């Protein structure tokens, strides 16, 4: 089951660039939350703060509190633990090219010390099914490399890989922006199904996508969270003029 995320006074920097300013929000459990905004507004930086990936940047700095369920992920947990419990899928699919499909999905499990063949087989199959990829690759699990799949399949492989370690939250940073419309539709269908078991946060450039898959939407502008409400309200009756300008295409 997924958990909710509570963000308080989150600030983030790239060196001296104050990329995120005083972000406060609550992401509900078992829902899909979309984050929209023009390029450079900080939405990607924000999700990378949720799984402590921002600090892997040599000049990245974060202050504030992020609570995942009961856990303060910055002060009470190690990055390794946090990143296992909060999975991430990136804009460009990045499967491991030297590993088979099976090994890709199992990679996170092996990191955590799982060696038992039966367990690995079972979790790999389950994850691939959850990512709606199993039927397409079930005969080639160990024969084909992760990089030999099509773009859409690779992204679903990355989703399966993230799901295999049993996260509670799945972060998706523009997961379909590098894919064709058919693959994009598949990914969006997938998000619908994943919602029931995980909390999904999806960064997207595509407002229609946000409207299609997310219950809640947050609008970021220049490092600030301008508005955060139900998707329906954001797109039909936004409270802030800036949101309205963005929605109607006046900029970005």
């Amino acid at each position: 089951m997924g958990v909710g995320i509570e963000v308080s006074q989150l600030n983030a920097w790239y060196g001296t660039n104050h990329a995120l300013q005083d972000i406060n929000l609550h992401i509900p459990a078992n829902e899909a939350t979309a984050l929209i905004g023009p390029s450079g507004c900080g939405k990607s930086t924000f999700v990378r703060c949720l799984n402590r990936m921002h600090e892997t940047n040599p000049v990245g700095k974060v202050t504030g509190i992020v609570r995942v369920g009961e856990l303060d992920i910055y002060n009470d947990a190690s990055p390794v633990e946090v990143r296992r419990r909060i999975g991430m899928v990136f804009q460009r699919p990045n499967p491991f090219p030297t590993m088979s499909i099976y090994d890709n999905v199992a990679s996170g499990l092996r990191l955590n010390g799982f060696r038992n063949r039966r367990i690995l087989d079972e979790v790999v199959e389950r994850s691939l099914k959850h990512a709606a990829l199993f039927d397409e690759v079930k005969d080639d699990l160990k024969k084909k490399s992760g990089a030999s799949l099509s773009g859409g399949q690779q992204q679903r492989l990355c989703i399966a890989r993230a799901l295999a370690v049993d996260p509670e939250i799945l972060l998706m940073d523009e997961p379909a922006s590098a894919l064709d419309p058919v693959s994009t539709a598949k990914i969006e269908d997938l998000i619908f199904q994943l919602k029931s078991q995980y909390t999904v946060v999806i960064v997207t450039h595509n407002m229609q996508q946000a409207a299609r898959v997310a219950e809640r939407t947050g609008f970021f502008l220049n490092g600030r969270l301008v508005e955060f409400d139900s998707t329906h309200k954001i797109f039909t009756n936004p409270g802030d003029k800036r949101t309205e300008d963005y929605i109607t295409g006046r900029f970005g």
Partner: protein
Amino acid sequence: MALPQKPSKANYIWRMFANHAATALAVVSTILVVAPLVAIFFYLLYKGASSLNLNFFTKVPAPVGETGGGMANAIVGSGILLALSSLLGVPIGIGAGIYLSEFGRGGRLANFVRFTADVLNGVPSIVMGIAVYSLIVLPQKHFSALSGGVALGIMMIPTITRTTEEMLLMVPNAIREAALGLGVPNWRSVLAITLKTASPGVITGCMLAFARVAGETAPLLFTAFGNQFWSANINQPIAALPLQIYVYALSPYDEWHRLAWAGSLVLIVLIVVSVALVRYVTSRGVLKGAS
């Protein structure tokens, strides 16, 4: 969807340990690698500096048992060999580099040339010495500075070719097009404009080749052969700094060992200065005139 069991605490502790152990091993490796370097330089200074006096740079080797000799002839000899080798290596190297960059770009022939240059680079220097011995020394029936120069010159070619090509490739196409647009013939454009723009980088490439070749001993063993006396005759055997160091190091005389250390210090200083200069020039942006 749950994992059959949570990852165990023991597993987590092991992973953290492995992480720290890996860092420690990497640091230790670095120290172990830097240590011999520091040690070598230290001993060179320690053993060589005290022997460096005016005699070293002005006198030829003294007879066995006498002190006060020097390696002046070896230093001059190395200089002559370097000059001879550059007569052969620099034009061919730059020419091949020009071909690769300006005429052959992307072609299969160019790839073969580059590959062959790499092959030539990997040929052991002693084998180079044998080949030149066979080509020049045997027919002439005597050792000579000329044959030494040829051997060293051949060894320069791959380095100079590669760096010349790299530097020329960095010259923006806009410059070439501007020259052609003005009606400048191609050969002129390449030499007077493109090559000139890249010249700091090309020169440093040549310096790198000189530095490498200046320290070579093996190819000179049966070409230049070495000489205890002054000689500037290219048809006679000639002394060279690395050769002299080699002979002295293997000798049983303390006095000659002392000279070997001093000679090594001189050699190292020359090489380090060249390498540092090369790094300085390339890091500062070689093509200041290009944009």
